C-alpha cells in the first residue's frame, strides 16, 4: 500500500516501492522517507504494526513505533534516539543492508520485538529514504528476556562441562556482575564438592534428567550457597551426550528452614491422600529427620511413598484417630495431643503424641494431612516408674507404721525406767538423766575392786582370767566417757557398750558363785573370792543392768522418734512423686481454717514426740481460697513439718509454733512462726532452700530427717494457685558486733500468700 502523497515523494522511492509491491515478499517490507514517513508498506507490515490506513493509503511514520519514540510538540515530528542511532550506522554502511538488532516496538500499547534489516536508498549522492524488512522476533526475544529476568539461574554446559551460557540471575546468585565472568569456565570450579558435578553428569547419562539435586556452590567471595539443580541432557545427532542445560534455584533459606526442621526433636510429616473411603491411601510425601529416626526409616524409602497407615500398631486405633480428626476438622480445629501406639519399620512399638491437620485444595477438599508427632514412650515409662516409686514409698510408709507399733511393744519389759519415754529429750538431756546411773556403776566397780586389791593370791588369779584387768579397764572407760567421745550422741552407745560388757562379766561371776557343785579346782578358788564380795558383784551387775536397760529404752525411743520423723517426709515424697501422675484435681473453694486443721491432724503425733506446741495466737479467719485441697493441705503440712522439725527446745519449756492469718487487699497470708534452726541469708536470697533436694546448711542434724523436697513442693503448689511464698529468718540474739549468734535460735517466719475466693 502506498502513501497518499506518493506522487510528491521522491521518484527513486516511488520506483523502489513499485518494485517491492510487485515482488510481494512473504515478510513485512517497507520503504520510508528519511524522516520515517512510509512511502510503501506491504500487507505483512500493515498487519504487524497495525499501520494507519486511510482511504486505502498508508499514513504513518515508522519512528513512532520505536519504544523510546516521543512526539516533538513544536514540530509535530516523531523522534527516537534508537532510530537516530540506526540511521547513523546506516550512513557508514555504504548502502549495504544493515542487519538489525532486536529492537522493541510499541504496537497498540504492546511491546513487540522486531529485527529491522534495512538499507539506505541513495539519490544523487544523498539519502532519499530506506528500504527495510521487519521480522517479528517477539517470541524469541521474550524468551531471551525471560532468560535474563528469571530469578532462577539458567545454564547450559557443553559435553566437557564447560559453561557456554548462563543468565544474569545465576551470575548474580554466585556473586558475579555478569554472565561473561562464568562463560568458558569449567562448571566443577563452582561446586564446593566438584564430584557433585560429575555425579549429575553420570545421572543424566543414566536417566536423561536430574531433579532436585541439592548441593553447595562456591560464590565469588568464597562463601557457599545451597542450591537445587535441575538438569536435562542435550544430545547430538547420534543421540550421544553433548552437554546439559537446566536451572539452579537458591534454596539457602529453604535449606536453613529444612535444617531447622531437621534439628528439632519432634517428628514432622506431610501426607497425601490417594483414593477415598476405607481404601484411601495416605502416602508420606515429606518428613523431617526426627520422624525418620523415630520410625527407623531411611529417606529413600519414604520417597517411595510409604503409606502412613502401616505405621500404626492397630488399625482400629487408626480408624478412631481418623474419625477424631474429621470431627475436629468439622469444628475447624486440628487434632492435638492424641496419644496413639505406632510401630517402627524395624518393629519397635512406641507411643506418640500426635498433632495433625488436613491439607486442602482450593475447593476445600481434603487432599492430605500434615502433622507433628512426639515420642512419649519415655514420658510414659517415667509415669510408670513414678507409679512404681509411689508403690515402694507406700510400702515404706506401711513398714514404718508397723515398725512403730513393734518398737512400742518392746518397751514394757524394759520398765521401770528413770525417764518418761513419752517426753522429748535431746541427747544432752538424755546424758544428764543417765549420769546418776553411770556414777552408781563407777562407784560399785570401785567398791568391788577395793575388795580384790589386798588379797595378793586371789589378785593373781583374777588377773590370770582377766577379770580384774577388765573391771579396771571398764572403770577407766566409764570415767573417761566425756574425753573419749566427741558428742553426747556418741556417749550413749559408748556407755551402753560398757554397761553391756559389765553385765556379761558380772553375770559370769554370779554364775560361778551359784553353781558351786560343778566347779573345777580353779573355779573353786574363784568361788571363794567371789563369795566374799558377792553383794558387791551383784551391785555392779544391777548398776550395769540398770544403765544398759535405760540406754536400750533410750535407743528404742530414739528409733520410734525417727520412725515418726520419717513418716511425713516419706509420705510427702510419695505425694510429690505421684502428684505428677494424678489427673489435675478440680479446684474448689477451700476454707483456710480447714486446710490448717487437716495439716495439723496429720502431724499431731510428731509434734507431741518433739514436745512442740502448735498455737493459734490470733484468729484463723473463715476465709476461702480457690484451689486444689489436696495440694494445699500437702503444702501446709510440709511447712508445719519443717516448723516442728526445726523448732528450738529450751530446757525449761516446750518449743512452739504460732499459726496465724492476715489480710492484704484480696489476699490472705498464712503465717507460721517459730523459734528454730537458723537459715542463712544467702540460702533465702539465692533461693537455695527451694532447690529440689537441698537441705539447709544448718539443718544437717541427723535427728532431722528429710528429703529436701518439702519447700520445692510447697513453692510449686503455691505458684500453681497464683500465690507467693516467703521465708524470713532473723536472729534473736546478736553479739557486741551486731553479728548474729548462730548458737541461739532464730525466729523463722514463713508466709504463704493466696488469693481470697469471693
Amino acid at each position, binding site marked *: 500500500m502506498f502513501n497518499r502523497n506518493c506522487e510528491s515523494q521522491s521518484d527513486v522511492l516511488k520506483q523502489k516501492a513499485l518494485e517491492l509491491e510487485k515482488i510481494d515478499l512473504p515478510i513485512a517490507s517497507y520503504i520510508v522517507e528519511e524522516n520515517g514517513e512510509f512511502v510503501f508498506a506491504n500487507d505483512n507490515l500493515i498487519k504487524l504494526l497495525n499501520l494507519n490506513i486511510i482511504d486505502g493509503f498508508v499514513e504513518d511514520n515508522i519512528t513512532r513505533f520505536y519504544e523510546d519514540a516521543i512526539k516533538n510538540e513544536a514540530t509535530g515530528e516523531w523522534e527516537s534516539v534508537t532510530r537516530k542511532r540506526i540511521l547513523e550506522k546506516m550512513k557508514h554502511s555504504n548502502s549495504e543492508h544493515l542487519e538489525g538488532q532486536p529492537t522493541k516496538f510499541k504496537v497498540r500499547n504492546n511491546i513487540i520485538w522486531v529485527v529491522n534489516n534495512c538499507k539506505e536508498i541513495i539519490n544523487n549522492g544523498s539519502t532519499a529514504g530506506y528500504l527495510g524488512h521487519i521480522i517479528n522476533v517477539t517470541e524469541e526475544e521474550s524468551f531471551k528476556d525471560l532468560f535474563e529476568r528469571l530469578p532462577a539461574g539458567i545454564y547450559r554446559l557443553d559435553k566437557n562441562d564447560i559453561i557456554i551460557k548462563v543468565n544474569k540471575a545465576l551470575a548474580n546468585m554466585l556473586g558475579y556482575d555478569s554472565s561473561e565472568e562464568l562463560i568458558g569456565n569449567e562448571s566443577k570450579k563452582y561446586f564446593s564438592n566438584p564430584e557433585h558435578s560429575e555425579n549429575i553428569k553420570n545421572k543424566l547419562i543414566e536417566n536423561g534428567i536430574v531433579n532436585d539435586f541439592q548441593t553447595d556452590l562456591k560464590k565469588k567471595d568464597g562463601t557457599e550457597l545451597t542450591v537445587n539443580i535441575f538438569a536435562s541432557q542435550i544430545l547430538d545427532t547420534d543421540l550421544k551426550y553433548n552437554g546439559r542445560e537446566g536451572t539452579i534455584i537458591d534454596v539457602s533459606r529453604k535449606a536453613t528452614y529444612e535444617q531447622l526442621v531437621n534439628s528439632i526433636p519432634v517428628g514432622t510429616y506431610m501426607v497425601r491422600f490417594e483414593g477415598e473411603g476405607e481404601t484411601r491411601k495416605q502416602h508420606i510425601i515429606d518428613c523431617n529427620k526426627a520422624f525418620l529416626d523415630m520410625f527407623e526409616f531411611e529417606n529413600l524409602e519414604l520417597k517411595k511413598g510409604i503409606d502412613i497407615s502401616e505405621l500404626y500398631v492397630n488399625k482400629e486405633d487408626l480408624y478412631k484417630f481418623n474419625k477424631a480428626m474429621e470431627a475436629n476438622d468439622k469444628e475447624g480445629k486440628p487434632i492435638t495431643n492424641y496419644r496413639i501406639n505406632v510401630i517402627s519399620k524395624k518393629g519397635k512399638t512406641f507411643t506418640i503424641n500426635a498433632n495433625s491437620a488436613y491439607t486442602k485444595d482450593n475447593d476445600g477438599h481434603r487432599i492430605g494431612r500434615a502433622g507433628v508427632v512426639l515420642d512419649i514412650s519415655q514420658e510414659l515409662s517415667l509415669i510408670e516408674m513414678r507409679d512404681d516409686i509411689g508403690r515402694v514409698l507406700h510400702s515404706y510408709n506401711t513398714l514404718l507404721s508397723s515398725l512403730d507399733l513393734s518398737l512400742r511393744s518392746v518397751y514394757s519389759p524394759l520398765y521401770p525406767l528413770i525417764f518418761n519415754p513419752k517426753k522429748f529429750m535431746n541427747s544432752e538431756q538424755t546424758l544428764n538423766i543417765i549420769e546418776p546411773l553411770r556414777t552408781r556403776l563407777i562407784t560399785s566397780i570401785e567398791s568391788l575392786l577395793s575388795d580384790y586389791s589386798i588379797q595378793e593370791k586371789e589378785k593373781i588369779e583374777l588377773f590370770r582370767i582377766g577379770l580384774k584387768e577388765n573391771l579396771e579397764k571398764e572403770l577407766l572407760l566409764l570415767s573417761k566417757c566425756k574425753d573419749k567421745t566427741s558428742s553426747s550422741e*556418741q556417749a*550413749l*552407745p559408748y556407755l551402753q*557398750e560398757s554397761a553391756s560388757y559389765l553385765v556379761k562379766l558380772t553375770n559370769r561371776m554370779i554364775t560361778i558363785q551359784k553353781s558351786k557343785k560343778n566347779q573345777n579346782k580353779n573355779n573353786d578358788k574363784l568361788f571363794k573370792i567371789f563369795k566374799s564380795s558377792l553383794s558387791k558383784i551383784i551391785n555392779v551387775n544391777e548398776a550395769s543392768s540398770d544403765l544398759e536397760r535405760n540406754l536400750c529404752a533410750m535407743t528404742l525411743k530414739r528409733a520410734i522418734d525417727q520412725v515418726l520423723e520419717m513418716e511425713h517426709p516419706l509420705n510427702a515424697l510419695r505425694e510429690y512423686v505421684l502428684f505428677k501422675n494424678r489427673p489435675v484435681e478440680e479446684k474448689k473453694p477451700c476454707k483456710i481454717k480447714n486446710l490448717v486443721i487437716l495439716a495439723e491432724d496429720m502431724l499431731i503425733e510428731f509434734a507431741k514426740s518433739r514436745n512442740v506446741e502448735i498455737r493459734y495466737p490470733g484468729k484463723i479467719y473463715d476465709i476461702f481460697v480457690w484451689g486444689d485441697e489436696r495440694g494445699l493441705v500437702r503444702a501446709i503440712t510440709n511447712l508445719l513439718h519443717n516448723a516442728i522439725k526445726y523448732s528450738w527446745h529450751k530446757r525449761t519449756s516446750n518449743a512452739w509454733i504460732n499459726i496465724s492469718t492476715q489480710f492484704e487487699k484480696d489476699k490472705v497470708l498464712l503465717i507460721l512462726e517459730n523459734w528454730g534452726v537458723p537459715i542463712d541469708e544467702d540460702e533465702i536470697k539465692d533461693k537455695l532452700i527451694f532447690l529440689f533436694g537441698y537441705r539447709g546448711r544448718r539443718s544437717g542434724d*541427723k535427728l532431722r530427717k528429710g528429703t529436701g523436697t518439702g519447700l520445692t513442693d510447697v513453692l510449686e503448689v503455691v505458684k500453681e494457685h497464683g500465690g507467693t511464698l516467703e521465708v524470713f529468718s532473723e536472729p534473736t540474739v546478736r553479739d557486741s558486733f551486731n553479728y548474729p549468734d548462730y548458737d541461739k535460735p532464730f525466729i523463722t517466719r514463713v508466709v504463704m500468700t493466696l488469693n481470697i475466693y469471693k
Partner: protein
Amino acid sequence: MKTILWIEDDSNHDVVKLCPAVQREPDWIFHIVPDVTQAISRIKSNRYDTIVLDIRIEPGRDKNWENLYIKKGASKNSARLGIELLYSMLNPRNDSIKVSEVPKWFSKHLIGILTVESLNELKDDLKNLVICEERYIQKKGGMSKKTLKNLIKRILSNK
C-alpha cells in the same frame, strides 16, 4: 598412740554404733569431723595415722566447697565431696578445688573409705586415685559394730 580421723557427717546418728569399738581402744586417739571444711582444717593441724572418710559429706563453711556442692546439685549424693576432697589432696584435676599446703605425711596409704556407695560406683575414682579396693568398705544393713575398727586396723597394719 595412733591418731585416727573419721570424716563422717552421720557419726552421731545412723552409724553412731560404730564409734564405741574405736573409742574403747586404749591406744587410739579418735577424731571425728562432719564436713570437708573441718576435715581440711584438722588435717592441716594434726598428723593422722589413718583417715577414714565417707563419700557423701557436706561442704561445711568453706565457700569454694560450698559452691562446688551447689554446682554439683546441692545434694550430698550428687556432689560426692568425699571423692572431690581426695582428688584435691592426692591427685588434683583441672576442676579440683586447690588445697594449699597439703601436709607431706598425707598419702593414699593412710586412706580408708566407708560409704554407702557400691564399689562399682567408685571403681574408676579409686583407680584414678590409686587407692586399692581393700581400703573400701560399703555401709550396709547387718554390718558389724566393729566394721570401722577393723577397717582402721587393716589400714594401720598395711601402711
